[in-house]
């Protein structure tokens, strides 16, 4: 793989970003998997500055407490505030599918969702799909095997849609997969690999 030193942020110094962000915007990050009830935060009674709202988001089974403006989309909150950049912004208008996440299990375009409207729903992003750091989700592995991508930019959205349609029973034939995956544009046009990857996982009958 390409050299590791080229990122200014990697696993180890990701923390300072969140800290920095917190100083700027009042973000409070609950420790992973620790449920934080609204009453337990000290900031509860105070009104956030300049029209901001204190909201609670459930993302990848973690609880995030964060102040947002009503106009902040879930996509921008994920990417700019929580550094969950696996979800991509391709068009910002619901026209490409690169921002697809699951909201209570449904594939949805994060670019057209206001974060403030999606509290207390279970949001899953590409970062929350794999069972563990060392193990890929079966569809992630299938995308690698079948080359269901080229540049990889649409890939997180494709995989989130792919998992959803397998779970929903819309992946029973290549034509059905093609139709139900049509909300995710791949400009590199790896459509054949995408259909093969989803079809292979569906056929194997693995729990996804």
């Amino acid at each position, binding site marked *: 793989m390409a050299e590791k030193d*080229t990122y200014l942020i990697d696993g180890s110094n990701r923390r300072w970003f969140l800290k920095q962000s917190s100083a700027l915007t009042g973000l409070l990050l609950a420790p992973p998997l620790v449920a934080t009830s609204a009453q337990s935060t000290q900031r509860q009674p105070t009104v956030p500055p300049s029209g901001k709202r204190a909201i609670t988001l459930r993302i990848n089974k973690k609880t995030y407490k964060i102040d947002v403006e009503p106009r902040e989309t879930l996509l921008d909150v994920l990417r700019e505030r929580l*550094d969950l950049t696996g979800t991509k912004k391709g068009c910002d208008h619901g026209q490409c599918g*690169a921002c697809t996440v699951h909201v209570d299990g449904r594939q949805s375009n994060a670019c057209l969702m206001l974060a403030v409207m999606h509290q207390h729903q279970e949001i899953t992003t*590409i*970062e929350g799909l794999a069972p563990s750091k060392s193990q890929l989700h079966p569809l992630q592995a299938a995308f690698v095997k079948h*080359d269901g991508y080229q540049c990889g*930019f649409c890939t997180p959205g494709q995989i989130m849609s792919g998992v959803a349609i397998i779970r929903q029973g819309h992946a029973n034939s290549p034509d059905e997969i*093609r139709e139900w995956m049509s909300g995710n544009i791949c400009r590199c046009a*790896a*459509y054949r690999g995408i259909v093969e990857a989803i079809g292979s996982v569906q056929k194997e009958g693995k729990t996804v």
Partner: protein
Amino acid sequence: MAKKLIGDPIDRIDGTQKVTGSARYSADVKRPGLVHGVLVMSTVANGTIQTLDTTETLRLPGILAVMSHTNAPKLGGMDKNKSGETASDRVLHVFQDNLVHYNNQPIAMVIADTFEQAVEGASLVRVTYATEPVKPGLPTSTDKPLTPPRLPRVDDQVDTTRGDVKKGMAGAASTLEATYKTPTQFHNALEPHAVLSFWEGDKLTMYTTTQGISGYQKRVAELFGMPKENVRVITQYLGGGFGSKGTTFSQAMLGPMAAKLVGKPVKLVLKREHMFGMVGSRSATVQTMNVGATADGQLTAMTHDTLAQTSAFDEFMEPAGTITRMLYACPNLATTHKFIKANVGSTSPMRAPGEAPGVFALECAIDEMADKLKIDPLQFRLKNYAEEDPHRNRPFSSKSLRECYQQGADQFGWSKRAKQPRATRDGNYLVGMGMATTVYPVNRGESTAMVRLNTDGTVRLETGTQDLGTGTFTIMNQLAAEVLGLSPDQVTLGAGDSKYPEAVGSGGSRTTVTTGSAVTQAAQEVLKKAKKMAYSDKKSPLYAVAEAEIEAKNGRLESKSDPKKGESFTSLLKRNGNKPIEATTLSKSGAEKETHSMSAFGAIFVEVRVDEALGEVRISRMLGNIAAGKIVNAKTAKSQILGGMVWGVSMALHEYAALDTRNARIMNPNLAEYHVPVNADIRDIDAIFIDEADETVNPAGVKGIGEIGIVGTVSAIANAIYHATGKRHYDLPITVEKLIG
């Protein structure tokens, strides 16, 4: 040494990062104190900015600055801001004056603490203009066509003639004249152009979206008027480019200028609607073909006249006629290129620039002539097969087009094709088959690669290339590993950063040809040194063995005739000072450039179903048979060809800029109305590589494959639609209104 012509279909080395979302593209990078820039675009196509009122914007919270021609940092290298020798040097709009040359041109940037603040701020900048009459471009322009100063490839002549076209036409039993129109197209990589810039003193670092790290570094440095060593350019992951990231466009300067103005790291990401103008386009063309042939199907003469558009401030020419010069053995031939100037954003290279629109015209005309002569279109092409390059009068380094035709026809079932058009019906559908030749020249630039064989037997490879999604990073490792007899996972790669040795820009299918050759040569140099170390070392089992008798295999050097005789790299290096062996090689074209003609060739076969009542066309089957020298990785290469073929579908059936000719504004600047194919548009599609050994073309033995997929597909589809319906289409894209019977 017998090398594999079709390389292992190994998984991409960055696959895990891409499927888990951990791959950081340029817009994903963070910096402490990062602020956000959002562009303000012009809403007129020609004129001058009279007032640019930022009062309302500056009243908002979080706004740091509004950068425009009134306050932008002055650039020291603006004398270099002109149409350059290479296709990637285009004229930029970097707020140095108040001129507007096209609708949707960047004219200001709002910089704010948050993205939301910057977006709102940009919406509140009030601009007034003094406007001039608008030149809307093709096909409505009535301006006088001009002869361009050059074509993008410097060794391509603008106009050519050979033989005597008049005589050739006079001697033809059948002649054909047809005019083909192609629209303005936009690349629309799924990743919007992004640039994160920050200054440390006079040193600039940019995380950015570029297909050419080295060229980008040079261009930014020269426009700032500073040494290129002061600019570091990083593109770790690139979300597609297709040419729009090959040219260093305006955002490359506007980002670091803003960072300088506010003294903070600035992230500038283009909105999707900004990608319809300022980051290039495929020029609209109007092409006229004349073809003459004898009754038994010998071409006697051809002309191909291209009219393209270029922007009012630039001189890029879409080189649509170059393939016509060399594809068929036609004795009398003339090609011309002209452009008109228009108030449009830069026209620029887009996947197979010239070849894609040009071969659409050529291969549709060939198909129509075959039909006129009542000769099978594949037979007609074989009758005019060019054994040598008729334009350059040189042999081909290799050409396996005949094999592509043959195998493709067999696999596709071409012999079952109805002799007459409009002869096959299935329910509401008319069914047709079409084919076309596809071709792409071998373009080789200059690249440097460093290969280091470490004492633990692993290899470090460094070269300043980038991976657009083509698989470059994976392939470079494979090439180095193959030379050194290692598994690719024993190679680590340093790339995607201008701190590595300079490598060619990834455009014109150059990367594997050029950088792949550099990697191959550097690895060969390391191997040579290792062999020498072995046969000169009395303690080595290979002492005094002839160099040619030694080969690298499984991390060892061993005797070809007696594989047991040999030793691992590790033991060899340990005994010899325990130091790595390293080689850095600059690779570029040699004599073959003067002695041979070099191109990849292929054949595309398509079956379409047309519902005339509803104007609906569906592509039921597509097959590409490609001969492109050695294929390094069968898996990523196939994806490249399939992707190119889908681009052919897109050009044939979907893409066009919807222009309001009154104000030269693009009215479909989004992915809902600028259509590219979705998954449901692509059904049975396949690509097959033909074995082709080419020792001449370059040290890696490869030809580029990034563009050849699109080139012939466009005309193959148009020809299939003709075969289905009996109606020829000369005007792209072939949409509903053109298909309803």
